[in-house]
């Protein structure tokens, strides 16, 4: 699986190369700014791009802008955006055109290498990975303003959060020490409670749940 890395801090860039290389990824290029990143992606057509959000020259949201352009231009390339601080608006923007092949994670998640690599593989194969921090915040927010979410059991809320993070049923089952069947039961009850259409497609499921949580 071929990867291009965009990260301006040299130490972190090198660290990412090592982690991804050790995880079985083929790091074809590692660059330090958004422009070089887009050029590299055009040249290498990688399966996955891992990029920092904040890069030269303005150190604002170049990574996010580049990610949106890459996703629009190269449909075969998945993108994971890393950030010091995650927020709802950026997640919504990343997911605005289509789900799948996109990830938005706190930089800090790199330290939990196994989970991080699992998330990258999920995204590279067309999945979605939204940082638990954003999802937790969105669920908490929905719990305050949405009666239906407030009525969900604690376990259902856990499952809802994991669905929103982009986890597959198998992954959710493994995390919560449940059978996949139990997870399916939970999700269908959640869908009933929130009046969401049952959707077997994993990506659409993420979009629907995130859309539901994101509403005002």
């Amino acid at each position: 699986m071929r990867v291009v890395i965009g990260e301006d801090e040299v130490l972190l860039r090198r660290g990412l190369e090592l982690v991804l290389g050790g995880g079985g990824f083929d790091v074809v290029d590692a660059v330090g700014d958004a422009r070089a990143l887009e050029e590299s992606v055009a040249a290498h057509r990688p399966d996955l791009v891992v990029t920092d959000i904040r890069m030269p020259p303005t150190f604002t949201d170049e990574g996010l802008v580049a990610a949106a352009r890459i996703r629009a231009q190269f449909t075969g390339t998945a993108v994971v955006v890393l950030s010091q601080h995650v927020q709802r608006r950026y997640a919504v923007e990343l997911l605005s055109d289509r789900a799948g092949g996109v990830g938005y994670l706190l930089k800090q998640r790199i330290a939990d290498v196994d989970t991080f690599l699992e998330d990258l593989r999920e995204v590279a194969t067309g999945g979605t990975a939204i940082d638990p921090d954003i999802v937790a915040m969105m669920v908490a927010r929905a719990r305050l303003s949405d009666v239906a979410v407030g009525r969900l059991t604690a376990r259902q809320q856990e499952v809802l959060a994991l669905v929103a993070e982009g986890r597959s049923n198998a992954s959710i089952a493994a995390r919560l020490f449940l059978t996949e069947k139990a997870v399916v039961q939970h999700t269908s009850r959640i869908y009933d409670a929130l009046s969401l259409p049952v959707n077997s497609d994993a990506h659409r499921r993420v979009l629907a749940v995130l859309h539901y949580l994101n509403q005002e």
Partner: protein
Amino acid sequence: MARTDSSTEAVRGRAHTTLRSPGPGHSPLRRSFDRALLAILVSGLLFAVLLVALLPLDGPASGVLVLFPINLVVYLLAGLLAWYNRPSNRMGALILLAGGAVFLGGAGNTEIPLFVIIGTIGASLPLAVLVHLLLAFPTGELRGSLERFTVGAGYVTAVFLQMPSYMLSADGPAPTLIITDAPGLAEAGTAVQSAVGGAVLLLTAGLLAIRLGQATGLERRVLVPLYGYGIVAMAVLLFSTRLVRTLLDWGPEAVGILQLSAFLGVPVAFALAVLRGGVARTGELEELGAWLGAAGDEKPAIASALARTLGDPSIEVWFWVHGRSTFVDVDGVDISDARSGERRGLEVVELDGRLIGAISYDEALMPDPELARTASRVVAIALDRERLTAELRSSRHALQLSRERLVEAADQERRRIAQDMHDGLQVKLVLLALEAQQMAGATGLGSGDQVAIRATALRRGIDDAAAELRGLVHSVMPAALIQRGLSAAAEDLVDRMPIPTTLHLGVVDGECSPVVESVAYFIVAEALTNAVKYSEAQRIRVSLVRREASLHIEVSDDGRGGARTPGGSGLLGMSERIDVLGGTLVVDSEHGQGTHIKVEVPCG
């Protein structure tokens, strides 16, 4: 610093400059006016010298005759003094006119035929002028038609009814004027003149009595002696020739001395009354205008200028303080209701529809509120200037204090960050390092699984420390604010609220400067933090709207209210930031009514 202070002192010192009369050197108009008065003075003195030269002062009636030039000089000086100090009041001119009548009286006693003729014709003019003076006081102008008639009748009596006395008698003073010798007719003519003159005197006395009746107590203090003296002087002029001579058996010289002495007091009385004030005079608003045009440095306080102009020493000028919706006096002391007590008139001063101040005056001294209204219009701009100066002075002082507090606030913030890092992060990192060292020392002793478990725990600890650092960095300067701007950052803030919070956004990121956005963000952050900590609110509403070049920030909750301002350091910090941008902060936090914070900062 020292320089700033001394210049402030200079400004203060200037405010206490005493009232200067609108003396020479103010305007070209004023200078030519001064020259004209000087010309009148010189020519008047020449006439006085002429009288001294021509009158037979070594003759038998010298005691009477010497009073003519003295009278003339007194009239001249009194008239000029009144005119000089009250250029727009006609009383000064009238007094000078009376001086002219005195000269005619004197001229009739010389031996120059032409002088004798005009002196004879105008012999009774002083009487008419006296009526004119009395009825024209205090403005110098006649108000009603009855007054104009009375004065006209006075002049007719003095000039035309005088004719029989010198035309029909063979022993008249001016032989060239005699047309026939009919002593009976002359006698009758004089009797008619006395009768009509008496009627004019009565009419005048009646009119003055009506005026006194309408006047207030303070006005009467000026008017009663003046009118009384005027009437007595008139009576003396009119009747002393007959009554005193017959009743008291005085000689003609004694009677003449009595008449001229009585007449001598007239200009002094009128000039004093005009200059003393106490009776309002409309014409002098022009002088107020002249004062307003005077060089700024020498301009006395508005209140004293108004007091002088309107003749009310008790006049006070109040300034309107918009922020507190109250009047303050020149010393910045709030005006209580007691001070706007009874018999105090209040005239509000407005400029371009804005309330800027008020003039508080004695209703007794200024019965006509229109006068105060006109005055308020004239001084509006100057009053606003004085108000702005006062505001500027106080805002400069406030600015200095604000600067100091800003430096202090920045220091406090640094201290807080240092403290947080020291108490939290540093301790955590030390413990993590300790754990790592223990693991290194224990390697080989435990099984591989145990090492893995401990290493994972160590990683989680480092994760926590990193999260804490992230939170700290975010609290100092949130990423969204730098990356996108106010609305993105505010959204993130609201997203993470543990209380249901709605956000209304009416501002596009980048519309306001980064400084304004940052200040707005921290105001919202501070308000929300306070709401979470203290308000016990169920709902919070945040609104950020840009309207008419201002950013309006509102944070309202339905909690228990009672937020203190500016006591609470958080709110104080907010107000400092807002002050720096020239914005305003209103905190409405009554107990049980929730807290409503409204901030407006310029956003051009």
